[in-house]
């Protein structure tokens, strides 16, 4: 019941926001999303107390097709739900520095997204997952279309069609598995059983179909081209949701729907995907190096990080999976942080072209300091959350594929190159005529940045509570695979 409430609450919040009008929309949205976060924490405590059954919710939906409205949570879902419910108030709060037209619609759409995302994290029915997966696309489509920047029609169109195209493969795979279930059911356990009984090649194909859908959303080379332009066109709250949470839907999907479904296929063909991910890491890092616009740089950096996560997932061992979940968490926070820093700069300077900036540190050193910590987390310095994830990922991938891990490790060098270059260009050096009038941070901006930085450091210094949430679930998952 609690799980259902987690989905319903943002849905209702969305409608409330639609009705209230734009005057106090952001405050209402903040309160509602905080309530949702509180609910998620309550769910966490329930999970910790061992009452897993009370998080289950299963009623028949379309019984004659074997579709049920089955929700449930284990540690992995829990972590993802926590991530999205935690980021949402943060994103809402971060957007306080700017007044949007029709703000209530914007926030309502964000709430609807929240609902769909949480739904896809807790869905335990293939069909239900697919529905949530697709539904989440609709609000973000409108968010970008209505509040986006230049070229938004074109990019949203591309984004929408591209992701939709990918999900069709997933649908086909789901239906194929459905037809192989014992008594035609979309329930996750039935699908697992069906997937595992398939011959090797078919498992590989199923994996490929799922991966295509997820790879486009993550995105992984060579399916990434929608992403930079979409990130650039999207408004800041939208892009935060997109990069912070939505891409995690895909990586979560890999863990939930691919690994246990077709374990033999992953064992046999997983190296292909690990290879692709490693290519993705190096490729995106290289391109990030020469970006002139900070937002593009974040986009490509994001591809590099996601590539590492995907490699870790397919390495399929305790360390890599723990690492990938940790990295999803920290990547979500860091992406929001980076985009917020971008937003602060862009709102003030009206440009994000790095060569035009410079010397901001001399004008507003607090911002530079906080921003730098976010940058450090992105280049995985120990005692930031980025390090925990990346280290575990490298350690895990290494046990499966040494060469891949070594190449993936190059990302720590290249990451340092592009991130420090960007930071230097924007923040250091001589103050120029543009940055000379860089206004001081607002209180709200300072608080947001501080929250992000505190999260980064706390998670980096003491990651144990987070690792504990997922530990047993991953163990179960891995046991099921062997």
């Amino acid at each position, binding site marked *: 019941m609690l799980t259902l409430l987690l989905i319903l609450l943002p849905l209702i919040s969305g409608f409330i926001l639609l009705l209230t009008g734009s005057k106090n929309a952001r405050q209402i949205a903040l309160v509602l999303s905080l309530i949702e976060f509180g609910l998620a924490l309550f769910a966490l405590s329930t999970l910790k107390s061992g009452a897993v059954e009370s998080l289950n919710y299963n009623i028949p939906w379309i019984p004659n097709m074997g579709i049920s409205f089955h929700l449930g949570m284990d540690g992995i879902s829990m972590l993802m739900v926590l991530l999205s419910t935690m980021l949402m108030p943060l994103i809402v709060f971060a957007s306080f520095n700017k007044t949007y037209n029709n703000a209530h619609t914007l926030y309502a759409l964000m709430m609807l997204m929240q609902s769909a995302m949480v739904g896809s994290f807790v869905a335990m029915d293939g069909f239900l997952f697919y529905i949530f997966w697709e539904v989440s696309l609709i609000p973000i489509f409108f968010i970008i279309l209505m509040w986006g920047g230049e070229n938004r029609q074109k990019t949203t169109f*591309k984004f929408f069609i591209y992701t939709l195209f990918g999900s069709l493969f997933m649908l086909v795979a789901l239906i194929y598995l459905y037809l192989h279930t014992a008594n035609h059911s979309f329930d996750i356990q039935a699908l697992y059983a069906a997937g595992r009984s398939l011959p090797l090649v078919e498992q590989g194909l199923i994996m490929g179909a799922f991966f295509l859908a997820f790879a486009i959303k993550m995105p992984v080379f060579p399916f990434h081209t929608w992403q930079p332009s979409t990130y650039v066109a999207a408004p800041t709250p939208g892009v935060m949701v997109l990069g912070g949470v939505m891409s995690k839907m895909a990586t979560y999907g890999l863990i939930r729907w691919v690994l246990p479904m077709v374990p033999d296929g992953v064992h046999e063909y997983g190296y292909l995907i690990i290879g692709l991910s490693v290519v993705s890491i190096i490729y995106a890092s290289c391109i990030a190096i020469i970006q002139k616009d900070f937002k593009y740089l974040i986009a490509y950096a994001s591809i590099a990080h996601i590539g590492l996560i995907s490699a870790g997932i397919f390495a399929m061992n305790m360390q890599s999976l723990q690492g990938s979940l940790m990295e999803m968490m920290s990547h979500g926070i860091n992406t929001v942080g980076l985009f917020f820093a971008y937003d602060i700069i862009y709102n003030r300077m009206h440009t994000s072209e790095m060569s035009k900036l410079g010397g901001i540190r001399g004008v507003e050193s607090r911002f530079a300091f906080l921003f730098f910590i976010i940058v*450090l987390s992105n280049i995985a*310095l*120990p005692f930031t959350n980025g390090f925990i994830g990346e280290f575990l990922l490298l*350690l895990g991938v290494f046990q499966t594929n040494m060469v891949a891990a070594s190449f993936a490790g190059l990302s720590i*060098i290249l990451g340092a190159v592009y991130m*420090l270059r960007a930071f230097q260009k924007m923040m250091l050096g001589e103050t120029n005529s543009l940055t000379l009038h860089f206004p001081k941070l607002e209180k709200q901006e300072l608080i947001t940045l501080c929250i992000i930085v505190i999260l980064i450091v706390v998670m980096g210094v*003491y*990651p144990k509570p987070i690792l504990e949430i997922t530990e047993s679930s991953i163990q179960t998952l891995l046991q099921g695979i062997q």
Partner: protein
Amino acid sequence: MEQLVKLIPLFPLISFAIIALMNRRLSKPQAAVIACIGVLLSFIDSAVVFQSQLQSFHPVEVKVFDWIIAGNFNASFSFLVDPLSSIFLMVITGVGFLIHLFSVGYMKDDDGMRRFFAYLNLFIFFMLVLVLGNNFLVMFIGWEGVGFCSFMLIGFWYKDNKNNDAAKKAFVMNRIGDLGFLIAMCLIFFNFGSLNYSTLFSPGFLAESSVSTETLTLITFCLFVGAMGKSAQIPLYTWLPDAMAGPTPVSALIHAATMVTAGIYMVARTNVMFSLTPDTMTLVSIIGIATALLGAVIGLFQNDIKKVLAYSTVSQLGLMFVALGVGAYTAAVFHVVTHAFFKALLFLGSGSVIHAMGGEQDIRVMGGLKKKLPITYLTFLIGTLAISGIPPLAGFFSKDQILSEAFAHNKILFALGLLVSLMTAFYMFRLFFLTFHGSFRGTHDQEHHLHESPMNMTLPLIVLAVCAAFAGFIGVPHVIGEGLGLHNLFESYLSPVLGVSSSHIEASVEWMLMGLTTVLIVMVILYARHLFVSKNYVPESDSHMKGSFKKLAYGKFYVDEFYNKVFTQPLDKISLFLEKGIDIPVIDGMVRGIGKLTQGLASIARKIQTGNTGYYAIAFVFAILLLFIFFI
């Protein structure tokens, strides 16, 4: 005891936190005092711990908290105090405190003084974590952390992009090494299932494990790559001279006394592994001697006071790696200690000079500072003598130990090492004579400005000079010690961790070597005196440089330019190609192509839709015909 160990890194961390959080609410002197107290407390604490370690060999392991746990991987944030780490603790906190003290005077006019002390404290914290860690991962925290602090401090004057470039270069080069370290950690965990020293280095653990020598060689090689980055060895040494862009106390603390010796510490810490892999050991000694030579040769021709010292550091680090490479871990650590003293002394002395000269670093416009800066002069002299290896100063003992170990191992190594020592003596005295002797060659303003530094700057100099003079006696070689009744305290203290060097050479041979080196060094010094004092030779200005080798060496053999051409620029070009040549046209092109293809096909197909009902009717009829034909 355990609480004391936990407190050692905590003090600087707390003072860092106070300064960072209070920032503008603290006055500059307050910030300085807090920073100094933090390190001083830590030093006292370390001394207590060190004292207890001196009594008997009893490593102390302290668990602070669980850090990363994932399945069978378990790395807690824990500390280990044993002789090796306690010595490093002493050096870091001791020298660190003196340099803090010096900085109070040196940085007092700088706006960023609070920031400066905050970073310094943070650096001390990370450095302490590095040496205290009881497993590789905690060492890695410190390892990366000091790199980060070094980045912040090199680029301390961030308004000048040259400094930022140097900082970035240092960080990235270090990162290359860090990747090696990271891979080594992965390999170790993969093969042994643990990263804890106590597990890995427990007697017989490595020998009994079924891991092949090749794997071990790979591990040690990767570790050594890490050490290369941090300790500025070929090919990753170019960042260190550039790092002199930071304030001089930083150069003294980070880029001479402590951080750059982290590589030595790491190899010494993992000596059990290295001892099992002779191939890596050979590589270490080759790289070490090559770096030592290269650094010394470049050092001969530099005219920037800090650059000379920087290349000297590179060269000395090379010597330490030679010692590691021949298995003389104690000698290497011993040299780390003495080097920390005299190199910190030299850097601080140069800081004093630069301070007096108002920021000028070119020795060609100095000269005759002897009278104006008497204390600096005297302490600098002690430092120079110490680094040159004149008995009985500290450098003599440690350098001699390295050379004799090298001699026992390989004669060529010894010869090259001796050459390096001679060159060291030459360029150090060249620097010394050009700076302090002769007549002043700078502008009138500068001459007017010359003054001895205040007490809080000269005091650290004096203390360090005393250390540089007498620290050698803790590690007197056996041959001398026997006669004087002195025991080699250093070796016996460290032997439980590092073992005793197995190489033995005849006492007479060792005496001979010592004599030979000393005589040669004295001759070199006299020659330098003849050249720079009697003949008043001053290096020509950049444009009048004659001799191709000289030019080459002055231009640092153009390694930076080479790297730039071979790595940096191609990387940019590749990246540009990837974006403009692959990403946009090919990959996005494919995506757009599919869209275009659909559109194209549709625009052909829609031509069928003429809008003329007549056509539709005809099509309709034909379709019916087809249906009839197919189905009836």
